[in-house]
């Protein structure tokens, strides 16, 4: 390629993202999260429409275990704290802190998934709920299942980052990947805050 063509290519493709100077990946993650939020928004709006249109909708607290899910909410909030601590650690060049807090975040995600599996088992086996029984069951299992898939993906994503951290891939000046996975994990927490309120409490 001639030097003029290279100069033109650079003119068309700026090397620095205009919104997130740290990395293009961060901007990509934000756009993905915005699209993903619309998926959850559509599901929550559909849930609201079905619930509002059904006068016989059961009171969630009469079927769902509020105390258990409150604990799951607290668990996800705790895992968000360990995630920001992991990012803060690597920004200070603290490799051990990064690994420790990443591992704690993964454990939080796994514990959340375990509690969700326990909740689903109890609802299906003991309460007789299912995704095909009624609109309550359909919306509940789709919303919490979709969120659970996100938590599972997050745990896999965090595990990949932990493996790279164990190889010493991140430094105080190169922590973009940790920041991007942190954005995803906080988003999963944020969505659960809304799901907990709309599906379990209201």
């Amino acid at each position, binding site marked *: 390629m001639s030097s003029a063509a290279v100069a033109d290519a650079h003119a068309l493709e700026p090397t620095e993202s205009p919104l997130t100077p740290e990395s293009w990946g961060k901007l990509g993650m934000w756009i993905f999260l*915005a699209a993903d939020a*619309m998926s959850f928004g559509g599901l929550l709006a559909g849930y609201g*429409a079905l619930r*509002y*249109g*059904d*006068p016989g909708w059961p009171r969630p607290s009469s079927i769902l275990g509020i105390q258990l899910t409150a604990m799951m909410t607290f668990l996800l909030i705790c895992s968000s704290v360990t995630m920001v601590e992991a990012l803060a650690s690597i920004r200070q060049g603290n490799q051990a802190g990064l690994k420790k807090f990443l591992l704690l975040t993964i454990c939080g995600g796994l514990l959340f998934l375990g509690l969700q599996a326990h909740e689903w088992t109890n609802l299906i086996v003991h309460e007789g709920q299912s995704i095909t029984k009624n609109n309550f069951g359909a919306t509940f299992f789709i919303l919490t299942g979709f969120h659970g898939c996100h938590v599972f993906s997050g745990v896999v994503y965090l595990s990949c980052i932990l493996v790279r951290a164990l190889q010493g891939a991140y430094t105080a000046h190169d922590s973009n990947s940790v920041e991007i996975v942190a954005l995803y994990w906080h988003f999963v*927490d944020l969505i659960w805050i809304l799901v907990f309120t709309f599906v379990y409490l209201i």
Partner: protein
Amino acid sequence: MAHTAEELAHEQRRYLQVFFWLAVLTALELGVIYMPISRFAIGCMLVVLAGTKAALVALFYMHLSVEKRTLTWIALTPAVLCVFLVFMLLPDLGAITRSLTHATPPAATAEAHH
């Protein structure tokens, strides 16, 4: 975004403050559902509490408070579209409720045909 040691230490203190408030707001949510007030009032309070918690996570854990304003608009777009979708669904919701409220029970309809 903060990167000096002092700024990072300040940020870490803020993370713990936000955690404290998230825990307090979650406890408040659990308290609100048992309050002897109307379901509508409880619903409104829960939406405000959940919105506050979501805003705390987005602003401080996702660092939107220190990001460029355009990024905040990108993040807000899904919320605006979701509210728009709910308003677009409202006429249908009214129709569903009316049809359920005034519908003849299936058994009564079968008897009328005989």
